[in-house]
């Protein structure tokens, strides 16, 4: 059992998303940085998709009401367990009565708190994720509030080795999409989408070659980007069609929108590209003001990146299991 002692709005229970109901208009929700949540879970011996807490507003303070192993991953929030500073991407044993404080990260946007056994909230349509936009799933269909108490699921391998163990952050472990000359530009791999070729050469060049800035109108639903406006030569009549997290739509303003985890399940703006699934975690760590650039890849290349990410997670899982066996002697 963990108790939320202090939290700003918009922090919520998330797992890896709600799949299989999009044809009813139900979006996926789920962790904005899915790799961070999965890594935290695997360090603890949980299934990768166990529910954890996504923290995007700080400071965040919880008190443990029972002994439980925990992992803190994602943006480095300089977590302190009863005052002791923990390394980033770290798992350790918390004892009943101890407090965990997460501070606003200097870089990155979202941190994840995973607990052994997972956060045990009711499963809605196959997932424990909170849909903040509509208000269902997670803890009572809403963001977490001070005083909330969350149960942890049963966990057979609940103890971490003495002093804890950490994972190599994916920023270090996974090859970047590309090295951009300018520092602080996140390069995202994008597969051209249905209406890509309808855009004139000038707009296509701007899309692929210029840097885009994440605007302040950006949240779990989507990021609105600022840069050279993209325009069609003539308006396109298209029907609303299914959209997925990562799709880059171009509304009449010409400022692209990347739809993300809490996006609608359908939309009618022209689609110029889709950020590959395996790079969505990089967007989850981009905050307003961050610079993005798009690099064109094929579906085969996207699948290859997905395999690299899965291999990273599998290595974390296998080694963490070994460390826990050793520790339990």
């Amino acid at each position, binding site marked *: 059992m963990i108790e939320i002692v202090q939290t700003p709005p918009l922090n919520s229970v998330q797992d890896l998303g709600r799949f299989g109901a999009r044809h009813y208009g139900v979006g996926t929700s789920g962790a904005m940085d899915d790799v961070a949540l999965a890594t935290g879970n695997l360090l603890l011996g949980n299934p990768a998709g166990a529910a954890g807490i996504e923290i995007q507003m700080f400071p965040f303070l919880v008190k443990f009401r029972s002994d439980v192993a925990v992992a803190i991953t994602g943006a480095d929030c300089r977590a302190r367990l009863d005052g*002791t500073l923990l*390394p980033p*991407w770290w798992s350790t044993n918390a004892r009943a009565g101890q407090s965990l404080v997460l501070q606003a990260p200097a870089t990155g946007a979202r941190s994840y708190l995973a607990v052994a056994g997972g956060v045990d909230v009711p499963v809605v349509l196959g997932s424990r994720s909170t849909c903040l936009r509509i208000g269902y799933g997670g803890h009572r269909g809403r963001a977490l509030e001070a005083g909330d108490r969350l149960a942890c699921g049963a966990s057979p391998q609940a103890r971490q080795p003495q002093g804890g*163990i*950490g994972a*190599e*952050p994916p*920023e270090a472990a996974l090859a970047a999409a590309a090295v951009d000359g300018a520092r602080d530009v996140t390069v995202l791999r994008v597969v051209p989408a249905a209406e890509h070729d309808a855009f004139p050469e000038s707009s296509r060049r701007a899309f692929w070659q210029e840097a885009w800035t994440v605007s302040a109108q950006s949240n779990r639903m989507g990021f609105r980007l600022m840069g050279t406006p993209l325009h069609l030569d003539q308006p396109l009549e298209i029907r609303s069609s299914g959209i997925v997290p990562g799709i880059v739509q171009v509304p009449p303003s010409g400022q692209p929108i990347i739809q993300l985890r809490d996006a609608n399940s359908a939309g009618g703006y022209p689609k110029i590209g889709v950020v590959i699934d395996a790079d969505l975690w990089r967007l989850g760590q981009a905050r307003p003001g961050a610079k993005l650039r798009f690099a064109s890849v094929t579906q085969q290349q996207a699948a290859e990146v997905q395999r690299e990410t899965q291999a990273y997670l599998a*290595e974390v899982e296998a*080694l963490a299991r070994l460390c826990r066996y050793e520790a339990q002697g």
Partner: protein
Amino acid sequence: MRDALKPLSLDDIRGIAAWARTAGLGEIELEQPGLRLRLVFPATGGLHLVRSPTTGRFFDRHPARPDPFARPGDRVSARDVIGLVQVERLYRPVIAGRAGVLARFLAETGRLIDADTPLAEITTETEGRHGTRS
């Protein structure tokens, strides 16, 4: 029978003290007829060796943080993490183990090291002066 023994000179006592310190003794007591000598060394300057928990690559800092966990001269507590040893995708902590001052690292950051390799020296706090008894 006091004929065979010369009384200890000050130089003798200095010599004994130096030898006892080198041997790491906390206390030494000598008796001669008519003389009882007791030397007590406060345990300042005791060194604690921090050893690697496993075979892997040693780092004095985390890749996501610019600063090292601790610098020589920093005060550390027994539970502080002062480094990491990386094994493939995982990090094991290098834990100070004793409270004191980090004297120096014995391994360069980024080096491959074996399990039990000494990684750092900690100058431990005075561990209680035994022997103010007369």
